[in-house]
């Protein structure tokens, strides 16, 4: 009886917590949609999930898949090597420095991303292999597709600071921050306009240097 009453109280209370939706579009300065942009909302009352689901970044055909991954702080990521050659995954980024030296198959343990920041991944053998992990202190995050659009759902009522980041972003994501209020409405749409740097990642095609991949 006590349990039934408790359940009714919880159900009644939860009906007053509105779940908000945020539609976000990311474009460059020319108005073209920006893919691989991480959009995330930070609220004062943001509750981090205690055990974020483990994520996967594959190595396929000498490429990382996906190119950009967004995870909550405390997420473990596993790096399966699906090629029949060895890879050597590493990061020199302050937010997560690690190495998975020369391996095939699935590594024995995932890598825990326990500090907020943006992490650049590389392969020490195949210089063109590059990927990014955005490690954020919020569970409300997504990566844009080719249409430059994401929908953040299930945001509890309240005020949020929404930021966007992309590997080629020229400025700091805080400089693009927008504050939105989902107290009085359950959905909102905002847009970001990003200035991007030229993409200078190493090439897989033959280049003029001799020190890289032969």
């Amino acid at each position: 009886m006590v349990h039934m009453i408790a359940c009714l109280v919880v159900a009644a209370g939860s009906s007053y917590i509105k779940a908000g939706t945020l539609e976000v579009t990311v474009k460059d300065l020319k108005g073209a949609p920006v893919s691989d942009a991480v959009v995330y909302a930070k609220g004062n009352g943001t509750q981090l999930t205690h055990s974020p689901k483990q994520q996967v970044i594959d190595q396929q055909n000498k490429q990382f898949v996906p190119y950009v991954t967004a995870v909550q702080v405390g997420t473990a990521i596993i790096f399966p090597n699906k090629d029949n050659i060895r890879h050597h995954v590493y990061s020199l980024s302050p937010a997560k420095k690690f190495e998975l030296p020369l391996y095939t198959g699935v590594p024995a343990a995932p890598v825990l991303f326990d500090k907020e920041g943006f992490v650049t991944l590389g392969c020490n053998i195949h210089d063109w292999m590059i990927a990014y992990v955005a490690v954020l202190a919020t569970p409300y995050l997504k990566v844009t597709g080719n249409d430059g659009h994401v929908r953040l759902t299930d945001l509890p009522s309240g005020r949020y600071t929404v930021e966007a980041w992309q590997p080629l972003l020229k400025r700091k994501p805080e400089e693009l921050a927008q504050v939105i209020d989902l107290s009085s409405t359950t959905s909102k749409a905002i847009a970001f306009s990003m200035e991007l740097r030229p993409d200078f990642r190493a090439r897989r095609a033959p280049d003029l240097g001799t020190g890289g991949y032969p």
Partner: protein
Amino acid sequence: MKRVRSALFGLVFMTASSSTYADWRFGAETGALYESNLSNSDRASDVQSDWAWQGEAHASNGLQLTRDLRLDVGTDFRSVAWSEYDAFNRIGAGVSTNLRYRFGLGRLAPWLLLDERIGYDHFQQSAQSRWDETAALRGGIFLTERMALEAGYTFENLASSGDFFDRQGHRLDAGMIFDLTSSLQVRVGYSFRNGGVISYAVPPRPDVFRIATVRVGDTAFGAYPLYNAYRFRAETHAASLTVGYTLTRYLSAQAGYEYSVTVHDSLSYENHRFEAKIIFAY
């Protein structure tokens, strides 16, 4: 000695290619080449220019020995067909191995490369057919994400079937590579070579005869006028500009120009070399 080296190459090649961790790389390239002074002549009346089609195919296998040390072994087939002076047409094959040490992780880390290649080139003018051996020590460093510096020393030894075309040379070179855009690269280079050269001239040339070994009546440039071929040591300074453009994930195009001047005392000759090619690698 060549047999010992060939056996060593074979052993390394077989070991690397049978490895579980074989990381094969295949490539091919083809394009056009122009030499304004194919005859290496100092007198304007003797200068002969020509253009050629060239092609190359290669396969290599990489073996990461440690985090920083990589061994590559490869084989290549290459050919050059000249438009007019077919004495210089050649077809050849070679094996190569190199050991690269990188001082840290990632492509921006400084590196050193020890490279050795042995090949055989068969020339249409059979006297020029030769064993071709090069050994090189190269190094490079990224000064910024978009600018790299490379430099190296190369020893080359050409051992022809007839003694006349035997040559040895030492070459120092340096180059800067700039990433102008995400797909456009430019390389500016300089090289200095000290070694044997073959220069062709219509006799009589007592001034050249005095410093050179002579092959009288060489028909590489035809029978009339009949040239002599002269072999002597000289110094060559060359400046080059190469542009590379990435076309697809596996394909790029390169075009280059090199100006060189070769000097021995008062004798000197110039050459303008243009090259354009498509390169595929997988």
